[in-house]
């Protein structure tokens, strides 16, 4: 009796197992070796979690596959939770890394290179050609790593700017955005007088230790205040103390005057709840869909970050939000070369960069962006993008230290967060942060 029951059970389980295998989802050999007979190489391309970027790469992949029947490129969005970096790390950890991905920052690449998870791109056949065809010599020079190799091919470079609600500024009697710290505070006071419910800057991240958020608040201002002084060089803390403290003091003053909104709010700038915001060009497609009434020069204008009173407000530096492509070491040599060839094909034609620019509004990382004819008409039609393109030389890319995440978290935890919350003075915050960072760098 029991034996029979047992057998029946095993049979039932087998059936379930068979059905399950039949319905098994897309597990098309993530790192499948090329099929020897037909020599078809399969590549997994991870696009950024930004829908416009995915769309672009899908188009590029389709175009490439038409001309190259022996390559199969699968474009999918990279996992994003808790962050795209963590997603990539866990993919590597579980042996499911793609062949190539975009959205890699300099700091993260440093981490990956240190654990040998990515391969140097300058060792690929055709690298020099790619650089010259895409006019990238200047741009890419800033990306070299300490071992003199290039691990990332930067795709775009956003020279971060601040946007201001020009309509509100006009009401307050300004016809141009303020340029120095005191001017900003003065504007803020006038704002509060007329509109006590409004804020200067709405940014919930100011009180969170989120590491990458520092690019868009602290570093924008620090780069301007220190005129592009490096924060970390190699493994040393080389930041300009005076400029750093002044930057923190600025945040402190903003906070004291109730000019910062640190609560989560939806679209505060678009709703004129806040009149200034750190803005990257990726916002424009978002506005086109959700806030078509935002007009350059009417509702908003763009400017470089404000500077401390004793710094020259002309020729200001800012932060370059720039990311690029890396190729992963876990892929086969065949896959790696195929991926590189794909990229070379894409970037050998300036029109592809133009298509990228049009679709994502992210300025391609080229030396000739503001001079090349191919982009001229597009920039003329979109003067707000022109300002981004023009400021690329003024933008400083992120640090390339392996411990970028921890360092930037410390900037938040020890300095920016407490200063904004009114818990520390600017001097103490800077000292504490410096100590903590030096502790990590050892």
């Amino acid at each position, binding site marked *: *009796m*029991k034996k029979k*029951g047992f057998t029946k059970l095993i049979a039932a389980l087998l059936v379930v197992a068979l059905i*399950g295998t039949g319905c098994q989802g897309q597990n098309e050999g993530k790192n499948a070796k090329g099929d020897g007979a037909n020599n078809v190489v399969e590549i997994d391309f991870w696009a950024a979690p930004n829908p416009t970027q995915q769309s672009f790469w899908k188009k590029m992949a389709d175009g490439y596959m038409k001309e190259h029947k022996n390559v199969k490129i699968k474009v999918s969005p990279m996992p994003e939770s808790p962050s795209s970096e963590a997603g990539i790390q*866990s993919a590597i950890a*579980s042996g499911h890394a793609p062949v190539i991905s975009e959205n890699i920052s300099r700091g993260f690449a440093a981490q990956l290179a240190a654990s040998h998870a990515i391969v140097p791109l300058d060792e690929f056949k055709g690298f020099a050609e790619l650089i010259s065809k895409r006019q990238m010599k200047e741009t890419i020079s800033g990306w070299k790593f300490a071992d003199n190799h290039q691990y990332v091919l930067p795709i775009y470079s956003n020279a971060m700017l601040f946007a201001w609600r020009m309509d509100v500024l006009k009401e307050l009697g300004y016809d141009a955005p303020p340029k120095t710290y005191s001017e900003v505070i003065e504007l803020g006071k006038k704002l509060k007088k007329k509109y006590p419910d409004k804020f200067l800057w709405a940014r919930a991240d100011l009180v969170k230790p989120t590491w990458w958020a520092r690019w868009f608040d602290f570093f924008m201002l620090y780069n301007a205040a220190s005129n592009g002084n490096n924060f970390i060089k190699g493994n040393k803390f080389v930041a300009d103390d005076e400029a750093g403290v002044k930057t923190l003091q600025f945040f402190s003053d903003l906070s004291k005057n109730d000019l910062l909104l640190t609560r989560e709010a939806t679209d505060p700038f678009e709703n004129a709840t806040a009149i200034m915001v750190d803005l990257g060009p990726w916002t424009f497609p978002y506005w086109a869909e959700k806030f078509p009434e935002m007009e350059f020069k009417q509702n908003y204008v763009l400017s470089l970050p404000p500077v401390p009173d004793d710094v020259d407000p002309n020729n200001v530096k800012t932060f370059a939000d720039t990311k690029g492509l890396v190729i992963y070491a876990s892929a086969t040599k065949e896959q790696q070369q195929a991926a590189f060839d794909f990229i070379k094909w894409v970037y050998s034609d300036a029109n592809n960069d133009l298509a990228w620019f049009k679709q994502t509004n992210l300025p391609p990382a080229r030396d000739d962006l503001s001079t090349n004819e191919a982009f001229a008409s597009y920039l003329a039609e979109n003067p707000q993008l022109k300002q981004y393109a023009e400021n690329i030389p003024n933008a400083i890319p992120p640090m390339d230290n392996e411990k970028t995440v921890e360092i930037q978290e410390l900037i938040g935890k020890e300095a920016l967060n407490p200063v904004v919350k009114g818990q520390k003075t600017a001097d103490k915050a800077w000292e504490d942060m410096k100590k903590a960072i030096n502790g990590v760098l050892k």
Partner: protein
Amino acid sequence: MAGSKKLKTALLYVLAFVVLIIMVFPYLYMILSSLAPWEQVDRKIIPTKLTLRSYEWLFTGGDGVVPRPWLRAFFNSIFVTLSSTVLMLVTAILVGYSLAKLKFKGSRFLNNVILFQMFYPAVILLIPLFLIVRYSGMYDTYWAMILPKAVSLWAIFMYTNFFRSIPDELIEAAKMDGAGQLTIIARIVLPMSKSITTIIFLFLFMERWVELLWDMLVVNNEKMLTLNVLLAQMFGPYGAYPGPMYAASVLLTFPILILFIIFSKNFKEGMQFVLK
């Protein structure tokens, strides 16, 4: 006096109803927000007009943008949840019956094993189970989501208790008639346990449907994500598009609500049984 009693009762009903509205308010808010014009989402409680824009956007992604696989995720959720739940029911019935009715050598041992497993917080197993999934190549497959969650100790416990209450004579009688164990289960025991099975099914299904941590860990590929995980991932990036977030939430929530309401009669009967 009769009059004041009626009044009291009426007030009681009003109270009960108000409380009910409060309890289901989040669901109402969810569905209203999913149908509201985008400027009114999270600004007004009741929208002045209704639009399907959020749903449209969810499935077509707006201009020139690749939409997320919401429908695929929905089906993933259904497949994974249903498979897990069925497996949990089957194992629970078989093990519960064995423990309750069959005398065999290891039954005390098995009983103790199960008790031990019940009191052992599952969190310790989280990392090793993840590693098992990763090393056995199950990562990013349906197996990874179903198999490690194919057993519910609670269900085993419930069925064991329930089966214990079935009179042995019934089983003996069937045995006399030459029925094998599985036949006994299928023909006698199962029909008797309709109510409790419904309850257990509903609870297991629902618990599995809203699971986040495990499904998030073992699956990376966007096409394999369950709806719950996909929604959680979109919390940040789609934060600026709250309308479609609500639409996705409705997709996640309302099927369960509807399933539940359809089975509410069985649920009520079953609960009577379980709680007594």
